C-alpha cells in the first residue's frame, strides 16, 4: 500500500527504479487517492485513466495544452476545447516517461488568488476545507498537498505558483522569465507568465525544473540555462549573503503570526552560517501592485481577443451579424474577473490614456528591476513572507477584487523584474502553513534550491496536513 500523502516524487522514483512498484500501480494509487479525497477538495477538473510512461506521474494546471485531453483554463469559453498538440512542457514530461494524472482546477485564465474564480467551482484547502488553497494554481497546490499527485505544474504571472504553494504548505518555484517554454500555454500576460513546479520538497522541485527548463525553438522568448540544474545537497549557508528587504517584510497587512514564523526562518539562516542584513526596495513594493494591474490586464486584453467564437470554444449566435456574435459569445463565456481585466486593459491601452497608464507602468517596471539589481550587489538572495496572510476563508474576498489583488503584494515586485522566486513552507500560524519567499537574481535557481533545501532540513516542516494524518 503506497501512502501518497507522504511519498515525495524522489522517493516514488526510487520505488520505480528498485522495481518495488510499477508505474501503473503508482498511477493507480494516485487515482485511488483522488477517488477518496477529491470530492471534498475539487483539485482536479478531470483525470486520465490510461497511464502511458514508466515514470512518476504528474498533474498539469488546466491552461497547459494536452493533446486529446480537454483544456479549459478554468473558463466556460473553452469548455469542450481539446488541444490538437501538446505544450512543450508536456512533451518534455512525456519524453521523461511521466504519465498524466489529470488537469487541475484554476482561477479562470489564471486571474485570481483563491481558485474561486474557476467557472467550474472552487478548490478547497487540504489543511482546512473552509479555506481557499490560494491561486491561481490552487488545484495543482491542493493536489500535491493532499497526496493526489506527487508533483504538478502551475503557472505564475503575479504569484500564482508561489502564493498557493505558501497557502498549502508546499514548495513552488516561479522560474526566471524565459527559462521554461510557454508554447502551448493558454496566454494571460505574456511578458510575465511562467510555468513552474509545485512539489512537496525542494529536491523534487529541482528535479522537475531540470526536466522542463531550457530553450524551446517554438518559444522565441526562451533561453538556454547558463548552468545545469543542480539537485541541492548542502545543508549549511556558509558564505551566503541573505538580504531582508524592509518593505517586503513590514508591508501593511502582513499578519503578526506570519511575521513571527518568517523571522524565525531568517534567524535560522544566521544559525546555518549565512550573513544576514537589512536592505531596501523603496518603490518596488509600493508601486509594484499598481504597475502589475496595468501591465497584466493590458496584455490580457490583447491575448484574450482570440476568444471570439470563430476557431474554438463557445459561440453564442443571435442578433445580426458577426459583431453581435463576438460580443454575445464573450459576455456569455467570460466570468467577472476576465471581463474586469479586459476592460481595465483596454482602457489602459486606449488612445489618450496609453502614456499615462501603460507607458508609465512600463517605466515603473524599469525602476523595480533597477532596485532589485541594486539589492543583489550586496546580497545573494532576498527573503520575505510569500503571502501576507495564511489561507483565508472561501468567500472572504470574493466581493472585493481589490482586496484579493493584495494577496500578491509580496510576490508581484520580483515577478515584474523577471526574477526567480521559490516559496518553501516555514511553519504554521493558527494551524495553517506560512510560506517563505526566496528571491534571487535572474538564473539563480541553483542558489534558491541550495538555500531552500538547507532551510527545509533545518525547519523540518511536516507537509502532510494535520487533519489528514
Amino acid at each position: 500500500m503506497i501512502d501518497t500523502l507522504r511519498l515525495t516524487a524522489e522517493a516514488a522514483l526510487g520505488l520505480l527504479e528498485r522495481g518495488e512498484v510499477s508505474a501503473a500501480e503508482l498511477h493507480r494509487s494516485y487515482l485511488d487517492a483522488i477517488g477518496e479525497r477529491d470530492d471534498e477538495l475539487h483539485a482536479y477538473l478531470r483525470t486520465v485513466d490510461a497511464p502511458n510512461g514508466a515514470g512518476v506521474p504528474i498533474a498539469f494546471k488546466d491552461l497547459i495544452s494536452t493533446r486529446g485531453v480537454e483544456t479549459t483554463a478554468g473558463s466556460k469559453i473553452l469548455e469542450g476545447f481539446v488541444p490538437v498538440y501538446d505544450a512543450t512542457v508536456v512533451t518534455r514530461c512525456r519524453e521523461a516517461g511521466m504519465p498524466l494524472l489529470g488537469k487541475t482546477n484554476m482561477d479562470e485564465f489564471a486571474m485570481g488568488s483563491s481558485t474561486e474564480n474557476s467557472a467550474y467551482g472552487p478548490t478547497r484547502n487540504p489543511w482546512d476545507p473552509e479555506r481557499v488553497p490560494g491561486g491561481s494554481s490552487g488545484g495543482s497546490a491542493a493536489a500535491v498537498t493532499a497526496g493526489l499527485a506527487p508533483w504538478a505544474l502551475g503557472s505564475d504571472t503575479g504569484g500564482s505558483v508561489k502564493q498557493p504553494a505558501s497557502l498549502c504548505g508546499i514548495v513552488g518555484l516561479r522560474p526566471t522569465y524565459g527559462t521554461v517554454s510557454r508554447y502551448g500555454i493558454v496566454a494571460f500576460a505574456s511578458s510575465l507568465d511562467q510555468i513552474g513546479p509545485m512539489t512537496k520538497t525542494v529536491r523534487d522541485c529541482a528535479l522537475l525544473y531540470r526536466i522542463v527548463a531550457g530553450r524551446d525553438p517554438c518559444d522565441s522568448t526562451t533561453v538556454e540555462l547558463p548552468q545545469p540544474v543542480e539537485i541541492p545537497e548542502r545543508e549549511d549557508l556558509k558564505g551566503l549573503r541573505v538580504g531582508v528587504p524592509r518593505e517586503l517584510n513590514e508591508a501593511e497587512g502582513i499578519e503578526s503570526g506570519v511575521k513571527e514564523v518568517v523571522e524565525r526562518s531568517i534567524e535560522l539562516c544566521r544559525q546555518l552560517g549565512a550573513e544576514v542584513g537589512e536592505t531596501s526596495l523603496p518603490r518596488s513594493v509600493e508601486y509594484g501592485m499598481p504597475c502589475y494591474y496595468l501591465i497584466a490586464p493590458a496584455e490580457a486584453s490583447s491575448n484574450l481577443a482570440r476568444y471570439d467564437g470563430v476557431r474554438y470554444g463557445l459561440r453564442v449566435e443571435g442578433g445580426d451579424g458577426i459583431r453581435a456574435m463576438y460580443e454575445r459569445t464573450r459576455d456569455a463565456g467570460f466570468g467577472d474577473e476576465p471581463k474586469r481585466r479586459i476592460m481595465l486593459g483596454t482602457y489602459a491601452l486606449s488612445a489618450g490614456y496609453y502614456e499615462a497608464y501603460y507607458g508609465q507602468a512600463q517605466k515603473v517596471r524599469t525602476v523595480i528591476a533597477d532596485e532589485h539589481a541594486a539589492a543583489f550587489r550586496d546580497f545573494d538572495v532576498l527573503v520575505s513572507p510569500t503571502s501576507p496572510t495564511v489561507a483565508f476563508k472561501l468567500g472572504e474576498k470574493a466581493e472585493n477584487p481589490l482586496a484579493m489583488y493584495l494577496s500578491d503584494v509580496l510576490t508581484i515586485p520580483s515577478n515584474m523584474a523577471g526574477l526567480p522566486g521559490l516559496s518553501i513552507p516555514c511553519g504554521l500560524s493558527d494551524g495553517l502553513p506560512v510560506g517563505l519567499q526566496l528571491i534571487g537574481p535572474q538564473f539563480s535557481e541553483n542558489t534558491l534550491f541550495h538555500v531552500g533545501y538547507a532551510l527545509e532540513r533545518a525547519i523540518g516542516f511536516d507537509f502532510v496536513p494535520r487533519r489528514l494524518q
Partner: protein
Amino acid sequence: MTRLARLELTEDEVARFTEQLSAILEAVAKVSELDLANVEPTAHPLDVVNVWAEDEPRPSIPADDALANAPAREAGFFKVPPA
C-alpha cells in the same frame, strides 16, 4: 470601452463593474505619482533581441486538426455569421 473590448454587458454587470473598476483605477493611478521622464520603459524582462530561426520547412498541423474545435465549419473553412 465595452465596444472596444467586444463585450456585450448586461445592465447589472455595467453597474457592478463601474463601481469595482473605479476603485481599481484609483489604486493603479498611483503610478502617476512618480516622475519618470528620464526612465526607459521595460517591455520584456530579458535582454533578448532579434531571435532568428533556421528557415527550414516543418510539417504543420493538418487543416482538419486546425478546424477540429471550430463551432462551425464548411468546406475546409471556419464558418461565421455575415459581417
